[in-house]
């Protein structure tokens, strides 16, 4: 330790930070500014009886664990390959880890291929949803200590971490992710759990809307894996492309997953939120956006790109602005001003064009008159998407935090139930 480190209060002890979400699991070393890897939170499950003629790439694939004669495929490079009878399944449900068997596969993969080190050398900090239940927390604690023999473990609510990543201990964290949009008040580093408000309108909801809209207009949604080659066609002309030769028996879940990836690309490139409630005339004046689908079909999108995105805000009960103001309204009157004073916007779905601006406007309308409303939204897409991870990275490498860990000794003595006490 030298004077410099004391000055900045940091002390790095080689901790790892895991931030599980519905879209992906973020893994990396504490003190770094971005996660080492972002692993999709879906796992490909192969057929029960493995084929005798394995394709060469799976042989060298260390993510595959021959367990129960099933094969598991983790991470983009393995999941996105068309394989016959491979089902795709997520291990998350409602913001919490649900399928522990699959989750273990992903953690195994992360240690073997991302961290490339032994788990017993690295303390582990996990993030969790603010509404995580006791049972789940204890299970995770048990898993990390019993299976992975971590030296120390800690669990923090992701809203707290997101607030820390923008340097706040008190903030209203509006997190819009793949499956949820939630508003979580954080007071001096603690989540006010009674005032958490969430809605199931997130990125996946938008993807479904986009898909419905495009299918209604008869646009062929062939994901990129189906296409062998394509010709250049004129705008709105029928696509000319040849199909790729694919293995038989592709499962519906995998095809859906691939289409969803495509829709995510579409929505991030095309959709936009208007700063004021949707108005046909205003929307028509904004320049169209051009988008080319994987099969070569392309066209301009005009007002529909605002109409679809509007569904995140116009809903009377579940609009993002309404969520945030409801959440603040449920808090004690004394903290409301400070919550309005720092509204932290985080989550991948907030990267939708115009999202923070619209949220700002909606909140301004609902906030009491002459309150100071301040929105804090990181500019970079990495900072916005990995807000909670970055907060965890900061927290785990702070000198004064090192006394907080549940060490393996403490776990031996007091068991898993102490996570409820030690990680508020």
């Amino acid at each position, binding site marked *: *330790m*030298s004077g410099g480190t*004391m000055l900045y*209060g940091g*002390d*790095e*002890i*080689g901790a790892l930070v895991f931030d599980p979400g519905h879209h992906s699991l973020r893994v990396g070393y504490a003190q770094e500014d971005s996660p080492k890897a972002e692993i999709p939170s879906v796992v490909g499950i192969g057929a029960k009886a493995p084929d005798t003629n394995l394709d060469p790439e799976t042989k060298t694939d260390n993510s595959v664990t021959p367990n129960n004669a099933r094969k598991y495929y983790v991470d983009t490079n393995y999941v996105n390959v068309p394989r016959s009878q491979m089902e795709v399944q997520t291990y998350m449900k409602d913001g919490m880890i649900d399928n522990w068997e699959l989750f273990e596969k992903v953690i195994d993969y992360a240690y073997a291929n991302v961290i490339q080190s032994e788990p017993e050398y690295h*303390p582990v900090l996990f993030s969790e949803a603010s509404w995580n239940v006791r049972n789940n927390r204890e299970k995770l604690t048990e898993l990390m200590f019993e299976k992975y023999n971590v*030296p*120390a473990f800690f669990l923090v609510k992701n809203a707290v971490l997101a607030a820390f990543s923008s340097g706040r201990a008190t903030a209203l964290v509006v997190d819009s992710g793949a499956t949820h949009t939630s508003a979580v008040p954080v*007071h*001096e580093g*603690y989540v*006010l*759990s*009674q*005032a958490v408000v969430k809605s199931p309108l997130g990125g996946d909801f938008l993807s479904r809307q986009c898909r419905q809209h495009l299918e209604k207009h008869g646009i062929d949604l062939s994901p990129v894996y189906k296409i062998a080659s394509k010709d250049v066609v004129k705008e709105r002309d029928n696509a000319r492309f040849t199909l790729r030769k694919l293995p038989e028996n592709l499962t519906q879940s995998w095809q859906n997953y691939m289409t969803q990836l495509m829709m995510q690309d579409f929505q991030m490139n095309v959709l936009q939120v208007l700063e004021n409630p949707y108005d046909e005339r205003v929307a028509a004046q904004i320049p169209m956006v051009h988008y080319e689908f994987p099969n070569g079909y392309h066209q301009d999108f005009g007002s529909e790109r605002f109409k679809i995105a509007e569904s995140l805000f116009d809903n009377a009960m579940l609009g993002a602005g309404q969520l945030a103001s409801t959440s603040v309204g449920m*808090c*004690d*009157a*004394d*903290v*409301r001003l400070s919550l309005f004073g720092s509204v932290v916007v985080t989550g991948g779905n907030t990267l939708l064009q115009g999202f923070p601006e619209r949220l700002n406007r909606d909140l301004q*309308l609902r906030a*009491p*008159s*002459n309150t100071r409303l301040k929105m804090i939204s990181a500019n970079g897409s990495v900072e916005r998407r990995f807000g909670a991870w970055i907060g965890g990275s900061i927290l785990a490498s702070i*000198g*004064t935090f*090192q*006394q907080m*860990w549940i*060490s*393996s*000794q*403490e776990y031996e*003595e007091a068991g898993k139930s102490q996570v409820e*006490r030690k990680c*508020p």
Partner: protein
Amino acid sequence: MSADVRDILDIERANTPEITRDSFLATKKRNFERTKHASRRPEGMHREVFALLYTDKKDAPPLLPTDTALGIGAGYKQNKARLGMKKVRKWEWAPFSNPARNDAAVFHHWKRVSDDSTDYPFAKFNKQLEIPSYTMTEYNAHLRNNIQHWSKVQTDHLFDLARRFDLRFIVMADRWNRQQHGTKTVEELKERYYEVIALLAKAKNQSIEKKTFVYDAEHERRRKEQLEKLFKRTTQQVEEEQMLINEMKKIEARKKERERKTQDLQKLISQADQQNEHAANTPSTRKYEKKLHKKKVHHTPRPSKVDSVVNAIEIGSSGIKFADLRGSGVSLRSQKMKLPANIGQRKVKALEQAIQEFKVDPAPPPTEDICTSFNELRSDMVLLCELRTALSTCIYEMESLKHQYEAACPGKTLNIPPSLVPIKTETLENSAT
């Protein structure tokens, strides 16, 4: 050219075997002397032209800028850090134990080998609140005063939460176990906590050493209610209020206008009466006044910066004009203490510094008295800062005048009367505060 640059930068890097600080300084000095004695540049010849003819080593100027780290023209790649001549200090991945922890868990971090292992430096930040505890007998003896609202279990739960969340009552109310103990508000928790603390202190006769706090729950509840009401105002209500206030202002303005007009009329009437009486006298007096005025104007003093400063202070533009919130309807009192937006960045900085200097709480609880005194205090602080700058300008100007005078009449010294000589600034500060 390269020699030229080296000359300007005073660098000489020709095969020096090992650089230590002493040798580096020595060679630098010697080279400097040598270059001085080398062939001199004739008067009027441009430096660049001379450098083309005579370089100290008679080498041709480089055609291309060099950036190799090898040649004599070591270029900009020269590593600056070479001045540090010590050996690299080693770091190691060393175990440490943290005295702030209750167990003896050992973690590892990077540490200099040379640093001796002292206590974990961050352990000293582990501050814990002292929250009193009570025994069963103590509880039975003193704390059974409010049975219908607070049972022993509930009180225990309250104190457990207080310890866990370091008296953050808002978080405590949030984590209060509602299934087992029913709902409690923040005020109820605070009320009970401070009640228990006071009772315990009384029982243990600690009241002399420690200040006991009395929590006025009723007042707090009313305050919260008011705050809720303020927040719950709809935009229509706010607008209506604003509208009414504007209307009132309009009416008042009209009333004033009318009054002014009647007064004017009255004046005109009385003046007309007077003019008739003193018609003969007035012109001469007016002329006299004009003359006087002219004389005064001629006698303008020499312009000085001090005047403007002093004027500004006298007029009263100094200090802070805090926003008067009476016009804007219902508002929080804490808003009164907000600095108005038109204050410059420098003033704000100076103010912050002054507040720190006098060890004042930068955000005191906004009661009526505190609000006014705090605002006055800050206004005075700004005035003090301005007076300080004014004083220093005055002193500076006086000094410069003195020097001017001495330059103009050599041999004479200007004696400044002692009343004008500034007292020590410290005493002045004290008196000003």
